[in-house]
């Protein structure tokens, strides 16, 4: 029932969004190209090439960057048992992708782009053909990248490294626009102009079809034919690479297995008690999981990023800025503990361990994984703000953290976002598409709840600063910590009760999806 509701919410968010983005994209493509053709016609080919390359790379890596695969990566290697030629399978997968919602939404944009590029009506079909060749290459390239990811997923150690690196790349790519904008419009303009003038995009096969479209629109037949031919060759080559990869995956040549690790002597769980063993298990598993390990490093990068933005936009870090930052870092402590357990949840809840212990261990491992981020925040904060503020900032971060994980226990019991099994697409299932969007909406709701519930303790830490009497911190900080601790204890006791009541439902939910 819940899953059907989530899917409905996801679709309700997705379809109008796609429709409007297609409409907006068409408008901006037309207006942008017309404007550029009128004032800087020489910049149109390199700019379109840059945009096509950016879109192409993002599309190719969309399963890892955005958590949603924009086009389908059909596992056609399963069809190799049938007497079908490889090129037929590759072409069938490409044609199948033409009906994906995002591909359909891209068609009006390409049509309006082609219309804007065509200086005469007779040029329109040729410009459109060039644009469609670009789209077809994009789909073929996405197919190649999906097959590479599939191949990597069959060799776990490669996949682990790839997932780790690509999460970092995704973080860098998503932060890049904000970093560029924080430098001001002039800096951004200079960067884009520099890239356009160098005309590097002409080397990118994502751009060749659009370059053909530009020349078709200007009536330059020879250039059109040359770029269109280059794009067609690139499509055929991508198809050939896909066919080769499919064959190798099918033969098991990319499935080389993993090396034996000798960990003898380090297997004993050293931390005391059941909570200690649970915590140690979580930390060992987290350190060996590339996605969690990447998240650990990103938890250090995020405060650095915000500090950078703060210092670029307001010329420094004010005391209130540091406390606000500490609140944000502490409140973003959502761990989705039971969803991340995956099928292991049947083991975890099969042990005769009090449920509150499980929750506390999960929360402690969440804290342990966020300590590096918190430490980064405090170290950087001490360089940019008065050092006397650091105890208050640490208290604010801890208070919001314990309230956040206390609330997160309910989220992970009632709305777990189930992690994929190792070797499967880590960004598929519950984390993708409409359900991924719905989970994000619920996350925002819980985040707001955390800020509200933690606000009295944040206020206590803030108060001496507002009154300009730092000595009051001697009383207000312990009081805030004790208050947040009491709220946490109540939240855990309540969540343990909810877990006991809903245990079979949670198990069914997670096991049904993992």
């Amino acid at each position, binding site marked *: 029932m819940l899953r059907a509701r989530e899917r409905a919410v996801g679709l309700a968010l997705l379809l109008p969004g796609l429709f409007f983005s297609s409409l907006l994209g068409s408008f901006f493509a037309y207006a942008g190209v017309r404007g550029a053709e009128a004032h800087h016609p020489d910049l149109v080919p390199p700019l379109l090439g840059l945009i096509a390359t950016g879109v192409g790379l993002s599309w190719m890596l969309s399963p890892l960057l955005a958590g949603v695969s924009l086009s389908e990566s059909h596992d056609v290697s399963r069809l190799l048992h049938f007497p079908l030629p490889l090129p037929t399978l590759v072409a069938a997968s490409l044609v199948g992708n033409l009906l994906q919602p995002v591909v359909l939404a891209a068609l009006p944009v390409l049509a309006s782009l082609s219309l804007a590029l065509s200086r005469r009506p007779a040029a329109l079909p040729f410009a459109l053909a060039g644009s469609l060749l670009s789209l077809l290459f994009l789909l073929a390239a996405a197919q190649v990248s999906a097959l590479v990811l599939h191949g990597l997923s069959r060799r776990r150690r490669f996949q682990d490294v790839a997932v780790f690196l690509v999460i970092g790349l995704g973080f860098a790519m998503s932060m890049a626009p904000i970093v560029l904008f924080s430098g001001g419009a002039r800096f951004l303009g200079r960067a884009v102009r520099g890239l356009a003038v160098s005309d590097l995009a002409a080397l990118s096969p994502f751009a060749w079809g659009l370059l053909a479209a530009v020349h078709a629109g200007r009536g330059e037949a020879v250039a059109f034919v040359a770029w269109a031919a280059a794009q067609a060759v690139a499509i055929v080559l991508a198809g050939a690479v896909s066919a080769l990869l499919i064959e190798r995956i099918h033969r098991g040549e990319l499935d080389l297995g993993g090396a034996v690790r000798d960990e003898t002597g380090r297997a004993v769980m050293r931390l005391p008690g059941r909570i200690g063993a649970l915590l*140690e298990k979580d930390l060992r598993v987290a350190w060996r999981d590339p996605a969690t390990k990447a998240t650990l490093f990103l938890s250090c990068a995020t405060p650095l990023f915000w500090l950078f933005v703060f210092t670029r936009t307001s010329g420094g870090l004010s005391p209130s800025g540091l406390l606000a930052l500490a609140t944000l870092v502490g409140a973003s402590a959502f761990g989705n503990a039971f969803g991340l357990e995956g099928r292991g949840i049947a083991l975890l809840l099969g042990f005769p361990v009090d449920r509150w212990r499980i929750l506390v261990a999960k929360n402690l491992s969440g804290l342990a994984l966020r300590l590096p981020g918190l430490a980064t925040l405090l170290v950087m904060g001490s360089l940019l703000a008065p050092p006397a503020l650091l105890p208050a900032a640490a208290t604010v971060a801890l208070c919001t953290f314990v309230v956040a994980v206390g609330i997160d226990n309910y989220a992970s019991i009632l709305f777990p976002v189930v992690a994929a099994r190792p070797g499967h697409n880590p960004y598929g299932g519950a984390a993708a598409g409409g359900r991924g969007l719905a989970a994000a909406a619920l996350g925002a709701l819980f985040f707001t709840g955390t800020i509200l519930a933690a606000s009295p303790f944040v206020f206590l830490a803030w108060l001496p600063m507002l009154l300009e009497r730092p000595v009051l911190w001697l009383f207000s900080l312990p009081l805030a910590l004790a208050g947040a601790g009491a709220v946490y204890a109540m939240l855990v006791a309540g969540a343990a009760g909810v877990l006991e009541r809903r245990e079979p439902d949670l198990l069914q939910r997670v096991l049904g999806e993992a």
Partner: protein
Amino acid sequence: MFRGRPAVDHVSFRVARGRFFGFLGPNGAGKSTTIKMLTGLLRPTEGEATIEGHPLEKELLAVKRVIGVLPEELPLYERLTGEEYLHFAGRMYGLSREETRRRTEELLAFLSLEEERGKLIVDYSQGMRKKTALAAALIHSPRVLFLDEPLNGIDPISGRVVTDLLRRLAQKGVTMFFTSHVLDVAERLCDEVAIIDRGRLVAQGTLEQIRAQREVGQDATLEDVFLKLVAADVRREDLSWIG
């Protein structure tokens, strides 16, 4: 409930302590569902169960202390090594660090997992995973063992070692609740069987009792009795296009 109909319907049985109890049935009959309900992984819509004197609904943790479970699907912690997993399981059952270490060593040696102890479970074969899960189910000396297809994927040598161990455990008073599709193994191991079909029990007792109740010959095997009870028609016409 499964797709609107009861997956298990009015199933009632009693297993005496130390018995090797076979719970048999065709695919989709409700065997794994019953095990999931008896081990607290699924909540029945109605009915109750008592294990070693503990009512399941009210004393779930007490039940979990005395049972060991080897599920058909093996949800192990993929990114722990086999040895780490056994250490973790021992600690979860409240064993001391030293006792956990001692039992882990014995189990790894007994199940021929010593060479693979440092490998991550994600790299284990199906048979190794099965043996690791069995080791974890045994580490706290349970009084009742739930075994869902315990011999699937295990090589014949390990299979023999495991069946001998299970037999010895039953002789020492451990109750076995065992499901398998391999009926000759069930016939060799089980003191008593129950046969479930489409969610309902169709027979229960020793093989001799069931033979007598259902009026099948005294030389009928468990497979013969099973096929008769689940009304399985195993006769087939030839495929029309194969000469």
